[in-house]
Structure formats: C-alpha cells, structure tokens
C-alpha cells in the first residue's frame, strides 16, 4: 500500500477555527475567517480550545490522496467508514478523499498501515489539530 497526499483545501485550520467561532459569536463567518487568515497565532489559540467531540467543525475541508492498493483494502475501508470517496484510476490505483473528521476518526479507530499513513497526512495539513487530538487521547 502506498498513500500520497496530493491536495487539500487551503488553510484548513483557519477554517476549523472560523467554524468554531461562528457557532458561538455574533460575528459573521466571512469576517471571522478573514480575521483569522490575517492572524495565524489566533488560529492556534482557537484550535487549542477545540472540542473534537463536536466534530462538524472539522468537516469544512477535504483531503485528496492517490492510493496504490489492492481492491480488498478499498472494500475494507468502505465497510469501516461511509465518509471516504474512491474513484478507480487504474489497476490498484485510486483517487481517495475525505474530510478531516472522517480521517481523524478512521485513524483513531482503525489499526493498520492506512490509518498510520492518514495520521501522517493530518500532521502535515493540520498540525495543531493533531497535537490537540493526541493530547485528548492521553
């Protein structure tokens, strides 16, 4: 199995922070997002208060991978989660995508090479979220 992250939504942590603040403040979401983009430190502060249990705030993004794997792994993954999308590109070659909530939940619940690789992707794309998720587990 080989998993390569090829693309993701820009500024995913700023969007997660914007989603968090949208639910609890009277400020318009576009204004919140603009302010956060201009202030990366604030993004980190907000993310550190993340309640992962309220998972919908982690869904405003998408990560896309090129997956080289046998069909069985894809089938197993689809049986474990309904929130991953797959497109067959060729023999044992797939385009795979999911949002961060689906990725986080899969990597927490499913042991194995795919879970490990997904965790690596998350560390690259959303390091603060991963830090918090790791802290939560301990």
């Amino acid at each position: 199995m080989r998993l390569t992250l090829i693309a993701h939504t820009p500024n995913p942590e700023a969007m997660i922070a914007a989603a968090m603040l949208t639910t609890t403040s009277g400020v318009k979401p576009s204004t919140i997002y603009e302010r956060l983009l201009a202030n990366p430190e604030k993004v980190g502060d907000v993310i550190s208060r993340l309640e992962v249990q309220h998972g919908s705030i982690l869904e405003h993004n998408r990560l896309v991978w090129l997956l080289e794997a046998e069909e069985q792994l894809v089938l197993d993954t689809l049986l474990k989660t309904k929130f991953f999308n797959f497109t067959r590109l060729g023999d044992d070659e797939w385009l795979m995508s999911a949002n961060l909530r689906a990725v986080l939940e899969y990597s927490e619940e499913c042991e194995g090479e795919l879970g490990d690789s997904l965790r690596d992707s998350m560390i690259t794309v959303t390091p603060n979220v991963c830090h918090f998720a790791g802290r939560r587990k301990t």
Partner: protein
Amino acid sequence: MKVRLLSHLSSKNIFSHLPPVNVSKKELLSHLSFTFALEGISRACSHQLVRHRVASFSQQSQRYIQVRRLKNHVIIPPSVAVKSPKVFDSLIDEASDTYQALVDVGIPREDARFVLPNATETNLLMTMDGRALMHFFGLRCCIRAQWEVKELSDEMLRQVREVEPEFFSGAGPYCFQLDRCPEGRFTCGRMGVVIEKYRV
C-alpha cells in the same frame, strides 16, 4: 443575504498531480469541496439547507448568542412586505418582547429562543462536495423552490461557475441538467425559458 464562497478544493489543484485518466467528470465531482459563508438568511431558509444531508454545517447557536433587537434581524418575505407588513411587525415586536422578558427573568437562552420566529436571521458555514452541490442546484435553483433558498442557490451557482466552469457549466435546476422536468404534475411548464436562463 450575503453569499460568499470562502474556500474550495479546486479540480486544477487535484488533477495537476495526476496522469491523464479516463474517468468521467461526474465521478470526479465528489472529490471537489466548496465552503460557503451564508449570512443574513432566515432560519426558515437554513431549515431547508440542513435537509441536504451530504453536507456540513456550522451555524450560529441561539444557545450561545443572545438575539438583540430582533426587529433589525429578521428576514421579511417580499409578499409580506407588500401585503401585510403591520401584521408581521406586530408578531415580531411581541416575540422580541417575550424573548427579552424571558431572558431578563433568568430563563436560559436555549429555552427563551423557543419564542423566536422562523424569520430570525442566521449566519452559517456550509460545505458540500461537488456531487452534493449538483443535487442541491438541481432542486433549489428550480423555479418552484422557495424564493429565499432559490436566490441563495442561484448566487452560489454563479460563484461556483466562476471557479469551476468546466465542472459546473451544466449545473442548474434539474430540467437544465437532465433536459427534462422531473417535477411531474407540479411542473412549471416553462422549461424552455428556465433552460435558457441557465445556459452559459
């Protein structure tokens, strides 16, 4: 109402990393993602949005945010504004006074909000993948859709076409997408006019 495509995962971003593949655009749509800020819409409108289950929402909470000066934060349907604005206003005044009175005596906001009307303004973030968005446009751009959600979806479509013209030039109400009306006996009977409106 203000609609803004805040962020999206573009087809260019994805496919520049792939070798040429023989896969239909329809199949690839589900890998695209679009996040909108939807501001100054009614709760009546947001109720319709959340019926689209293949989507993600982060909406202003009436548990955390106290509604102040309700009268300045309601959406008034055009039909009401023309025919009976006073009847509407009197209900808003009453709801506003009752809400404030409940909050003032210490009723939690989560309970006081029960008296707030569907007209109450709300703001939210909504994310859909490309396939869910096509379905959303199919239903909500239809001439039979309720005016507010139709206005919203038409503006969303305009912005999505700007960033992904190849994938969404064929997006619009289902009659435009399918070249037939799926509304059965409820058809508006103006399919030709509607199709012309959405043609790029």
